[in-house]
């Protein structure tokens, strides 16, 4: 800490920061545009001007740009004197000469950094009498809206899109007053992080399109701290609700995980909660029913064995309640054999090694990605890995006495100072293309090379002969040995447990300096893994039990086609099935109980690190919906099980902690905690929004025991250690940039302790994993299909969001040119595998290993085969029919979107109020 003087007052600030960041962390108001805590400074906007004085006697001073100036001991500056204030006002005035008169019809209005900064500088009237420049806008896809007139040329968008996220199709064009930020031609922005532009842009050039279509001002939205449901990273998000429907997801700062950015699957995928497919009604034998109906009660109280099938997409509490209800020996996770062995192994590894947070990932100086399609399975993690690639360059500029936040300098030396990225695997992706060392291989090969690499690193054989190591593996060993903070990345996407074992061995071989991250498939996969520690019914014995005796199935919902196919076969054999359904009304179960989505009730999930994170509801459940655990408690009452004694979520969590002591402290439950208002202080329309239905205002809603109130009652959002803030706001800072005022330092040299509870106790002493025979690939004829994912398409839940569904690609099959020639296929052709009905489009890629083909199948289709022998090519009429089918699918999407829009607008006008709370 060093001492500086601002306006004659002395302050302690962190050494090495720039002056702007220091001022903001001291909660001083200093306007800026181009600076961003995670993107560093370039000094483009000239807005953060302050006056610097030589010494105490200097009255004159000179104007400097705060974001470009490192703080120095004893430095004297002023931020409130007239000369710098006028300077800043002039800068704003110049920017505003061409800013359109758009605020009332701009989706950024009310949370616009430009509005805030204009008010802050005091500029209020446009003096310039000339004409305003205008630009034509571009179509940038279903996620972002472009309105170029509003640009103030701070360059943040291209710096984020190109430099930070590695996108290539957005650029700065033209010159002087005509600078234009856009694509070469109209088209969908290719980066899966493009949605962040809506938050990065200080004004309304890029705005959230789905949100804009069903828009509400920030001050009008009831927000809740939430956790993303679309991958195992568990990014922290803020959900916003208005008139009973969830409007959007924004980033909620978490220094250890997502920081300031989300991926587009997380940002736009939430929309499944507004889907017309949502279950809203209790159904019995596919007909709407009432809870009291005899037929339903008969189904629910049926005698005999009840088997519960958990869900890695449901919350920890729901799964635990199910486990309690049916007993741990009747609790089966929603996994097949292969996935169960992956889960087993993943659990073991988590008990041996801690997993790196994204902040730790960003600090790595060498990265090994072992057979994992990380771009798809955890996009935000891939973005963090991208940031690690800057570390050598940053170290280099610091040796030259240039601070690491001088972004332009860092980018300058980047080509000569790369961080080695080692890629063992297949498929093309963003990270693969920036890899320094690549080995093209299938998952078996990758795993064996991983074992061999571990052998090379520790000097003796670990399961696999070191002599198997290939050229690239030997190079990798050298790189990893030299690195001071090597990082190992793996995951489930190849479906091969050997990869996880290889990673664990590498981690042991490299020792404490290394860190590791393994991506799980769903946001709560590891929650199931925690519950399975007490024992469970395996997938194989589930099939046996069903064949042996008539059982009742109790199923937590899951949204993927392959799972549904499996469920359908189980249901046929079961005596009867009760589904706690989230999506899909038309189905064959005996009873369907509609459950509340994550936006409507509290819940927790265990992320890839094994950390428990919980979310709060942004709205109330409508229709017959109840949280899953609550349905299970009602069932327990019917079946007279001990779970029936649970009255609220707090008690359920108490039981959970009693059974799994490592979860102690995972939930903040301080009765003295002051209430936190989920509605902003300027929330409007309170006395009118329901007035067309009733002039009586209903009582504000709050979950029992939670400090969050769905009203304006309670504290304003402030930075709190224990309780997440529903939305970010600071007086005078209405945009999400108010977050920047809270940080002392963003991912600085010292990382703070992560404050969440780890659900896996590290009690096992790490040992070597031996190679198991079942991991070796079996001999097969034909081609092995390796499955690849897509950010938009592989996650079933997010496909219910229309914007994501529009971006979802059709099933694809990639092969090398020589393979295509051998099979007589041409790119663009449609083929079927071994007579299965699914059509795949042929693509050519260099990243296909020997004897393998790469396949991508969207989550709403299923391709059960792993090996394929022959392909049937679609003839011309068939191909045309497919095209036609796809076009009509897109048209359907469009119509659905319009119908959904109309339904939501109608719902805004007639908010579904549930006067009677739940079923008792």
């Amino acid at each position, binding site marked *: 800490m060093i001492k500086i003087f601002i306006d004659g007052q002395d302050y302690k600030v962190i050494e090495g920061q720039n002056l702007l960041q220091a001022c903001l962390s001291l909660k001083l108001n200093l306007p800026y545009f181009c600076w961003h805590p995670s993107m560093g400074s370039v000094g483009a906007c000239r807005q953060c001007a302050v006056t610097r004085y030589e010494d105490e006697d200097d009255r004159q001073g000179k104007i400097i740009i705060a974001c470009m100036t490192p703080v120095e001991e004893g430095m004297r500056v002023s931020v409130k004197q007239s000369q710098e204030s006028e300077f800043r006002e002039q800068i704003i005035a110049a920017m505003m000469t061409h800013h*359109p*008169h*758009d*605020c*009332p*019809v*701009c989706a950024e*209005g*009310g949370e616009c950094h430009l509005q805030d900064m204009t008010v802050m500088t005091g500029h209020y009237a446009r003096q310039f009498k*000339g*004409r*305003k*420049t*205008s*630009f*034509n*806008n571009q179509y940038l896809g279903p996620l972002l809206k472009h*309105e170029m*007139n*509003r640009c103030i040329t701070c360059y943040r968008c291209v710096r984020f899109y190109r430099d930070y996220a590695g996108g290539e199709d957005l650029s700065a*064009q*033209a*010159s*002087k*007053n*005509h600078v*234009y930020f*856009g694509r070469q031609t109209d088209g969908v922005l290719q980066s899966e992080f493009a949605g962040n532009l809506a938050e990065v842009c200080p004004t309304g050039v890029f705005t959230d399109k789905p949100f*804009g*279509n069903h*828009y*509400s*001002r920030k*001050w*009008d939205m009831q927000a809740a701290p939430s956790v993303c449901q679309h991958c195992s990273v568990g990014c922290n998000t803020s959900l916003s609700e208005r*008139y009973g429907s969830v409007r959007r997801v924004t980033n909620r700062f978490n220094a250890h995980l997502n920081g300031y950015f989300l991926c587009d699957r997380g940002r736009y995928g939430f929309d499944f909660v507004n889907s017309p497919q949502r279950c809203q009604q209790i159904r019995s034998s596919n007909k709407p029913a009432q809870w009291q109906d005899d037929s339903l009660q008969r189904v629910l109280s049926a005698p005999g064995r009840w088997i519960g099938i958990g869900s890695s997409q449901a919350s920890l509490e729901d799964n635990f309640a199910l486990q309690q209800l049916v007993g741990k020996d009747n609790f089966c996770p929603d996994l097949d054999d292969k996935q169960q062995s992956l889960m087993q192994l993943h659990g073991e590894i988590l008990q041996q090694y801690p997993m790196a947070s994204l902040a730790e990932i960003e600090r790595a100086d060498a990265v090994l990605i072992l057979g994992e399609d990380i771009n798809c399975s955890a996009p935000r993690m891939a973005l963090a890995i991208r940031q690690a690639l800057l570390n050598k360059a940053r170290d280099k500029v610091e040796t030259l006495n240039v601070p690491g936040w001088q972004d332009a300098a860092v980018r300058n030396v980047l080509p000569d100072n790369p961080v080695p990225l080692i890629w063992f695997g297949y498929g093309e992706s963003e990270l693969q293309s920036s890899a320094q060392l690549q080995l093209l291989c299938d998952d078996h090969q990758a795993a064996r090379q991983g074992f061999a690499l571990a052998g090379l690193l520790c000097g003796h054989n670990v399961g696999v002969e070191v002599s198997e190591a290939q050229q690239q593996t030997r190079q990798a060993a050298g790189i990893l040995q030299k690195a001071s903070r090597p990082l190992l990345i793996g995951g489930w996407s190849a479906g091969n447990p050997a990869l996880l074992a290889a990673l664990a061995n590498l981690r042991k071989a490299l020792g404490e300096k290394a860190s590791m991250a393994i991506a799980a498939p769903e946001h709560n996969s590891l929650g199931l893994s925690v519950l399975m520690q007490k024992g469970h019914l395996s997938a194989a014995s589930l099939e046996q039990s069903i064949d042996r005796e008539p059982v009742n199935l109790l199923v937590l919902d899951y949204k993927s086609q392959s799972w549904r196919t499996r469920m359908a076969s189980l249901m046929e054999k079961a005596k009867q099935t009760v589904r706690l359904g989230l999506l899909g009304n038309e189905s064959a179960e005996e009873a369907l109980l509609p459950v509340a989505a994550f936006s409507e009730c509290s819940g927790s999930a265990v992320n890839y690190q094994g950390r428990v994170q919980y979310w709060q509801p942004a709205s109330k459940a409508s229709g017959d919906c109840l949280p899953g655990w609550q349905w299970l408690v009602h069932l327990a009452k019917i079946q007279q099980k001990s779970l029936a004694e649970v009255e609220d979520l707090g008690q359920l969590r108490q039981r959970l902690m009693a059974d799994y002591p490592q979860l102690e402290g995972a939930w903040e439950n301080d009765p003295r905690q002051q209430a936190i208002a989920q509605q902003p202080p*300027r*929330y*409007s*329309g*309170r*006395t*009118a*929004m329901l*007035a*067309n239905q009733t*002039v009586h205002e209903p009582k504000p809603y709050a979950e029992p025991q939670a400090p969050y109130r769905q009203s304006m009652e309670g504290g304003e959002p402030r930075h709190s250690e224990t309780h997440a803030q529903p939305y970010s706001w600071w007086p005078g800072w209405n945009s999400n940039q108010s977050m920047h005022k809270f940080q002392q330092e963003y991912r600085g040299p010292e990382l703070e302790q992560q404050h969440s509870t780890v659900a896996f106790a590290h009690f096992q002493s790490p040992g070597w994993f031996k190679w198991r025979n079942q991991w070796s690939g079996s001999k097969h004829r034909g081609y092995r299909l390796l499955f690849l994912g897509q950010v938009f398409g592989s996650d079933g839940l997010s496909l219910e969001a229309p914007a994501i569904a529009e971006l979802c690609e059709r099933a694809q099959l990639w092969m090398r040119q020589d393979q295509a020639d051998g099979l007589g296929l041409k790119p663009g052709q449609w083929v079927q595998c071994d007579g299965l009905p699914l059509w795949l489009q042929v693509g050519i890629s260099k990243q296909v290993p020997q004897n393998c083909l790469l396949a991508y199948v969207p989550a709403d289709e299923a391709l059960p085969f792993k090996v394929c022998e022959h392909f049937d090519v679609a003839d011309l009429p068939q191909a045309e029919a497919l095209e036609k089918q796809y076009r009509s699918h897109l048209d359907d999407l469009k119509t659905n979107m319009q119908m959904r829009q109309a339904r939501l*607008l109608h719902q*805004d*006008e007639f908010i579904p109020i549930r006067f009677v709370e739940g079923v008792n």
Partner: protein
Amino acid sequence: MWSQLVTIWRVFRHLFAARDTVRYPEQKPYLSPRYRGRIVLTRDPDGDERCVACNLCAVACPVDCISLQKTEDDDGRWRPAFFRINFSRCIMCGLCEEACPTYAIQLTPDVEMSEYDRNSLVYEKEHLTIDGQGKYPGYSFYRKAGISIKGKAKGEADQEEKPVDVRNLLP
């Protein structure tokens, strides 16, 4: 003590002063055009709704009695999908009119809107919208704004240049 007595005397003298109140409703007082009474939504010179659903009136309302939802039509204009004022809560303070950036919402001198049923005081858009321009004739927000709507492409607003050709690097 003396001042109290004087006060008593002065108040007493009011017994003989003329009354300020009138016998409403038989006699009606004059209300100026800018009197703050019933709220209306006006139209712009083209006859289209002026309201752009910016929500500023709702946020300015101290009793939160205005609620609306924005929707966007094919012609690019922002409109309220519904616009509701709960007059049983309204205090006729006029802050909504001050906040309105498009002169859409205006207060009128009509104050006679009592009802036996509170529900009848909930006014929807169709009850609020009038056919004229109200107190501010001639103003059209979209002539000033930068966004393009049907019938007004980029660069056609007041005080606006034609759209820039980004391929042109000439000075």
